[in-house]
């Protein structure tokens, strides 16, 4: 049922027991959470979110907004790469989402060590993260590109597992370098450039001598990481998966023990 109100186009999905208020399943725009913005607003958002993210890097919502407002061309490129890959094409049509509700954690825990699913679970536990903490896409004005952006965000944790990087500052910077080389998203490039500023000298050295070049090289030569249907590969051996994606194992083993320290 479509309601025209005050000149705005609102889509409403009525459940069987519809309530008088049109709130929960209603959304304006092209997808749930979409906010229409003019080019001026996008520009202002890009600048504002950039400043806010620099001032307070823990504002993940600002990093997300920066990515959305600056990533249009890169998203188109990524979407086209996915379309040209058979597995990527399947993902674009089926639109899987990685959330705690869609993951069968008990089954994944029972998988053998060294399998992708088991290692991913181990990563989540060691670093105390959850796949549900990703912000929804708001400012991308194309429904398919919005999904590509969302997929990129949700794949980020899986990338940590694939690359063997923990969520401390050094690990995050290494992943950002990989992502910048892979996706070309300006937000990744910005993070890659500014992230090292917060590292101490020994870690900087490690980054520039071994981790950095490894991340960049592998980012360039690896298969498109968004084109992998991870949800169907939990049983696959992690090393096999790495070989398939053309990713070398990390040159340095970083532990998750020193989380939150630079």
């Amino acid at each position: 049922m479509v309601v025209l109100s005050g000149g705005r186009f609102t889509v409403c999905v009525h459940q069987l027991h519809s309530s008088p208020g049109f709130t929960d399943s209603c959304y304006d725009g092209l997808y749930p959470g979409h906010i229409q913005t003019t080019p001026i607003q996008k520009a202002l958002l890009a600048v504002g979110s950039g400043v806010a993210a620099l001032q307070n890097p823990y504002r993940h919502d600002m990093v997300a907004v920066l990515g959305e407002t600056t990533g249009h061309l890169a998203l188109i490129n990524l979407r086209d790469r996915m379309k040209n890959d058979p597995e990527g094409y399947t993902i674009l049509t089926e639109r899987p989402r990685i959330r705690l509700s869609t993951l069968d954690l008990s089954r994944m825990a029972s998988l053998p060590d060294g399998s992708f699913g088991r290692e991913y679970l181990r990563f989540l536990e060691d670093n105390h993260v959850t796949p549900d903490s990703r912000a929804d896409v708001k400012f991308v004005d194309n429904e398919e590109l919005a999904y590509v952006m969302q997929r990129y965000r949700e794949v980020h944790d899986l990338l940590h597992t694939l690359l063997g990087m923990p969520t401390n500052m050094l690990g995050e910077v290494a992943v950002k370098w990989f992502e910048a080389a892979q996706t070309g998203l300006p937000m990744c490039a910005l993070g890659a450039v500014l992230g090292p500023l917060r590292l101490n000298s020994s870690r900087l050295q490690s980054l520039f001598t071994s981790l950095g070049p490894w991340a960049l090289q592998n980012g360039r030569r690896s298969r498109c990481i968004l084109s992998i249907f991870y949800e169907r590969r939990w049983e696959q051996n992690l090393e096999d998966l790495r070989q398939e994606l053309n990713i070398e194992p990390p040159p340095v083993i970083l532990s998750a023990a020193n989380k939150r320290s630079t």
Partner: protein
Amino acid sequence: MAASMRLLVRRVLRLSHRNINVAAAGGSGRSGCCSGSSSCRCFSDATGDRSTHFGFETVPETEKAKRVYKVFENVAQKYDVMNDAMSLGIHRVWKDMLLHAMHPQPGVRLLDVAGGTGDIAFRFLEYVQSQQERQKRRAARSTQTPSWQDISTNYSTEDKDGPQESKAVVCDINKEMLKVGKQKADSMGVSAGLSWVVGDAEELPFDDDQFDIYTIAFGIRNVTHIDQALQEALRVLKPGGRFMCLEFSKVTNPVLARLYDTYSFQMIPVLGEVIAGDWKSYQYLVESIRKFPDQEEFKGMIEDAGFYCVHYHNLTGGVVALHSGFKL
């Protein structure tokens, strides 16, 4: 005499108009949209729920209060920061001007409705305190060479500062906003003469004839039934009491209006997203400003509620209007 007759006639006309509208709505089982937005069609329940505007959206009346509550719940923590950012600090000038127009004297009781974070109440207490100090200084100056007799009587009258103490009551429907206000009061060390009450402007939890001054700053446009809020204001004011309302209004100058609109719609939601992480609440804010009646219409509404000597002043070219009326 003529003014009161005019008021009476207007009130009768308004009441009859309202009856006709209600009859029509009841008869068809479907309600029309109010505020004359002709481009909207809305379907409501068969019970004939009236609908109203929530920004540019149309919602059932019962919905509006809930949604407004949610908006202010979300923005409460960043409310003051956002006010400074959006108005570039000018909102402080507007509120100071309200206080200057009010010119409260010591001993006056203020009710600040939709007072949330307490800006008006704090300014009121400060103003009254400075007035009190002024009076003391004047009194001291007038007794230049007191005799010992005079000095001893002065010491005994100083205790009588009690009844002179002014009280400010901050009333808001939203607990989060009151919480923020209380925190501010605690950090400023202000507590004497200040109360925080949860209440609905359409149904105030106070007796009749209680307050000398009723203020509502940037809150009345969020009320679902503005006329009810105005009637409640009349009820709780003492005879001779003053109603004062600061609210966003229509900008008359066309050039300024264009600039203001562009700024409002392009900049403010962006600021909301960047500073408070909430685009939609600030989109609602700028839209609700457009839906609020203009200066003259609002003046008419205040007169209809029963206030006399209703005047308004435009501030910043009409961006904000200060309306004032008296209960006689």
